[in-house]
């Protein structure tokens, strides 16, 4: 069963009761008492709660609510109502789900989703309607490039951001010839082209770009190809089961001894237990690492663990910062959700203390953040440096940039 849209009878009844109560209050009590019960701020959440990405959806949601609870459970002094819709990570249902939240529930803020295809549909509607929207995961470049809008913010990353800094880093290590391998789909191509941009600029040469049909995981033919090409290094992006299989196959093929593996951090996030020995030594870049040694990150991971009994991850951090951004903006306008312009100004100028480090926003409303260099050691992504300080997405094609 998928979670259905939560306009249940109970919700309807409680809303009716509240309306009746408010009516009674107006008739019985003096005006100040009515004002002391301000209307709820409605935060619409479009995230996957079923299917492959369910754990991402839950981590983002729980961390966002945790941030708001830590700040007293209110936004600008008003209580909060969370309206959750299960996106099922299904782009085909995305427009319908977004409409339910914007027109049906008339939410004040919209957040989500995980899947970039869902984000496309969601942002398209949100920028037309002007609903203030915070993208809390999907990394498609275009959300804060061609499709950017004053009311659309992102607290996660662009695919470009997490791959561009790897090029110069690999050159620094003396790897002048690289083969790239990924799935032939939007995210994979965005990541490889960002890597290539940074790598070629630093003087490197991508000798072959291997693209597999998504979601094919039979790598053997390509591993033989790589063995024949003998590059200095391999840059790759796969996720989930594909990531684990690639790491294992690469390890088993013996290539790892002579040709080191580099990747955006998504290859090794949440996959290291399954990959085991095959993950060791892989170097990745990402805007976060669980092992980040800062007091704020330690406090955050401990609090999240205590609240949810689950380990915090990069998705939880993005949810947490979505909550922080809402708190910051609503504080600036003292809870007045009608003051959209002021909310947008406050969000654009926000400087958040995130578990990932200090984070501000670029002109296209994407995070300006440090990209960390991490290496897998003993099943853990250990931070070994900063690949690029305060990296902003170029926002190419965005009218605001």
């Amino acid at each position: 069963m998928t979670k259905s849209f939560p306009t249940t009878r109970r919700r309807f009844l409680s809303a009716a009761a509240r309306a009746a109560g408010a009516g009674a209050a107006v008739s019985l009590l003096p005006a100040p008492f009515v004002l002391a019960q301000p209307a709820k701020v409605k935060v619409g959440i479009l995230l996957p709660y079923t299917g492959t990405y369910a754990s991402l959806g839950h981590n983002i949601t729980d961390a966002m609510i945790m941030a708001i609870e830590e700040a007293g459970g209110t936004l600008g002094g008003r209580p909060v109502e969370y309206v959750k819709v299960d996106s099922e990570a299904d782009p085909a249902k995305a427009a319908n789900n977004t409409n339910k939240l914007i027109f049906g529930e008339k939410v004040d803020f919209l957040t989500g989703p995980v899947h970039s295809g869902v984000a496309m549909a969601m942002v398209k509607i949100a920028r037309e309607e002007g609903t203030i929207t915070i993208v809390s995961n999907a990394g498609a470049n275009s959300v804060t490039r061609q499709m950017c809008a004053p009311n659309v913010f992102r607290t996660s990353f662009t695919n470009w951001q997490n791959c561009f800094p790897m090029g110069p880093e690999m050159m620094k290590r003396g790897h002048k010839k690289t083969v790239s391998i990924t799935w032939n789909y939007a995210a994979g191509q965005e990541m490889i082209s960002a890597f290539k941009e940074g790598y070629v600029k630093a003087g490197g040469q991508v000798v072959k770009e291997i693209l597999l049909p998504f979601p094919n995981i039979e790598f053997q033919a390509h591993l033989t190809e790589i063995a024949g090409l003998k590059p200095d290094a391999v840059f790759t992006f796969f996720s989930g089961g594909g990531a684990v299989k690639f790491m294992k196959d690469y390890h088993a093929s013996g290539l790892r001894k002579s040709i080191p593996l580099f990747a955006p951090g998504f290859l090794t996030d949440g996959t290291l237990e399954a990959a085991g020995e095959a993950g060791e030594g892989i170097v990745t870049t990402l805007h976060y690492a669980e092992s980040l040694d800062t007091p704020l990150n330690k406090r955050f991971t401990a609090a999240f663990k205590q609240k949810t009994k689950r380990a915090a991850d990069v998705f939880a951090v993005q949810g947490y910062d979505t909550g922080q951004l809402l708190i910051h903006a609503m504080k600036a306008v003292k809870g007045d959700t009608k003051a959209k312009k002021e909310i947008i100004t406050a969000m654009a100028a926000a400087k958040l203390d995130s578990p990932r480090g200090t984070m501000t926003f670029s002109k296209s409303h994407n995070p300006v953040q440090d990209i960390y260099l991490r290496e897998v050691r003993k099943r853990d992504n250990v931070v070994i440096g900063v690949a690029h300080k305060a990296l902003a997405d170029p926002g190419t094609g965005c009218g605001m940039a």
Partner: protein
Amino acid sequence: MDVSSFLVQSLNSVQYGFLLFLVASGLTLIFGILGVINLAHGSFFMIGAYLAHWLQLKTGNLFVAIALGLPLSFLLGLAVERLAIRFLYARDHLYQVLLTYGLILIFNELQRILWGNDVHGVPIPAVLDASVPLNETQSYPVYRFFISLACIGVAAAMYFVIHRTKLGMLIRAGAANREMVELLGFRVNRLYALVFALGAALTAFAGMLSAPVNSVYPGMGEHILIISFVVVVIGGLGSIQGAFVGAMLIGFVDTFGKVFVPEAASLSVYAFMAAVLLWRPQGLFGARPA
């Protein structure tokens, strides 16, 4: 392409062919002999992989896990056949597609409830955890050779049972003319249940064996479903040899397609299938339609 990489790619092809036959063998039985379009084939594969993961954690040994997992998946197949599939033998294929699609959703949700959505790895048993160097840069994992061996074993056993035993004779007879076999006094219903359960167990076995190289994750069954049908259709319905030859051909087409025409890598296998079906609509080893 030099000789050495040509040889390694041929090895890759054969090895992938073996793996494909193993994955499709259960479907060959169920689709080829019972004529049931079993979309839940991939689910049995997934269940096998998760059973291997789970039992391996409990027992600490993959071989023990497989020994325990096989009867479990046989029983599951039997239950599915008795509770659902058997009502649909006489019905149109569309009903079978609908029912088995529903089974996919149920099994996916069960997987989520029982084992969660994380990606798991199954370690390769220590005895087989080694690699054989092929040339100066690449080596080949021993476990993959082991899979190939297991596949040859399965193919031989299937061939023997179907062509050399009384049970096999009944199965073939039941596939050719069900009513006649019933009239001769055999319970075809029971026979079908047995074949379905065997098919399910075989598919789960493939899932268990390939778990260490594949990793175990949600949705893994859907990946192998279509390629399994391609193998069975190219080989011809009801033919074990056909499925074997089909799997080998697909192994070569896929591997060399990826190397020589990478732009059309996703297409090569299906273009090949279309070509085979244009030439022989009944598949390579299928009986000519009456």
